[in-house]
């Protein structure tokens, strides 16, 4: 009987250890660890292009996380993206002329919303909307502008075309 009891205690300890490991993995090493559990309030911001912004992306002031992106949806009337931000209630005193911009962490990293504090004496209230926003910078657009401005990139492609058409008709021809 004593032996059976020690089995049970041992199994109990083992199961406990396993669940403790699972709880540790789930809460300390995943994005849950980043969620502010405290009360929060909502702010809105409109962008013409949100780029690769994702739900639960961080909202930062001065590079420090103060909240997360709650929802991203298209406004059917104005056809722009309406982003709802959930900001920790500890950071209540954000001037209402602050601006929101979508930045990329690093060259190719995830995107986040950075808030540039303004100087207004009035603070944002729950549900307020940013007046000044700046959309995400599209790397493709930049590259496109850069390419269009300069190089003779189209010339080799034009030369290739007749050669490709001629090839099936006369395979042995070599230049």
């Amino acid at each position, binding site marked *: 009987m004593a032996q059976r009891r020690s089995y049970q205690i041992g199994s109990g300890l*083992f199961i406990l250890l396993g669940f403790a*490991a699972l709880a540790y993995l789930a809460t300390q090493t995943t*994005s849950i660890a980043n969620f502010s559990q405290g009360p929060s309030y909502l702010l809105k911001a409109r962008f013409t292009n949100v780029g690769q912004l994702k739900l639960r992306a961080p909202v930062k002031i001065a590079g420090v996380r103060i909240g997360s992106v709650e929802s991203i949806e298209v406004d059917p009337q104005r056809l722009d993206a309406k982003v709802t931000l959930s900001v920790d209630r500890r950071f209540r005193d954000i001037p209402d002329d602050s601006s929101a911009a979508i930045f990329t962490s690093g060259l190719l990293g995830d995107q986040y919303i950075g808030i540039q504090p303004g100087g207004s004496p009035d603070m944002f209230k729950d549900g307020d909307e940013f007046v000044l926003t700046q959309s995400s910078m599209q790397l493709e657009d930049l590259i496109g502008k850069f390419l269009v401005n300069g190089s003779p990139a189209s010339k080799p492609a034009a030369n290739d075309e007749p050669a490709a058409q001629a090839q099936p008709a006369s395979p042995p021809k070599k230049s």
Partner: protein
Amino acid sequence: MSTPRPWAGIGDALARVGAHGLFLLQILAALPASLRHYRETVRQIWFTGAMSLVIIMTCGLFVGMVLGLQLYYVLSIFGGTAALGTVVSLSLYRELGPVVTALLFAGRAGTSITAEIGLMRATDQLAAMEMMAVDPLAYVAAPRFIAGVVAMPLLACVFNALGIFGAHLVGVSWLGLDNGTFWSNMTSSVDVWKDVVNGVWKSVVFGAVVALIAVFQGYTTAPTSEGVAYATTRTVVFSSIVVLAVDFVMTAFLM
């Protein structure tokens, strides 16, 4: 001998798969009856789970340390050592944790289950149980199956935790990566449901697969010492193959 051999081989393989499937149904049918023998189930959890902790923890630690070293080297080529924690944790949660644990579990617990049940079969203990109106499926097979299903995910979680610890040991304490970088990059890109919980699901299925094969091989072994030896070997071979194959299928569906 008139039948062509390949067809016979395919028939054998199909019959084997079918026998495993039918045996699984039998075990599932015996589950309610095995609730009366919950003490036996607890003892099996102790034996297959808790007694496997040492090998799982040691292997987890070393796998984590090796991952830390290797990935640090590879990532340093691209100047991306900051992503070490992310890469280690994702590869552990999604693949290495469940798979390596399942392989170790097949070697540590699966073999002993097969040998134990095989010897019971060889020494006619299973027949004796039937004579005493004790269903061997409910008293012998089902508790070991449940124990495998319960113990595997827990072992995989312990493996993952020790793996992260090992990678942290190598990356931060030895190679001098910043502690905050290691953790914050990990926490920002690992998702609970997509990564951690999917890994747990995988390990639950692997536990069921390994336990089913181990119990089946023991239960249907030829009642000789040679038969038990073959059955034990087959347990390891079959469970390794099936675990890796199921891993591919589950990865394709869960991703």
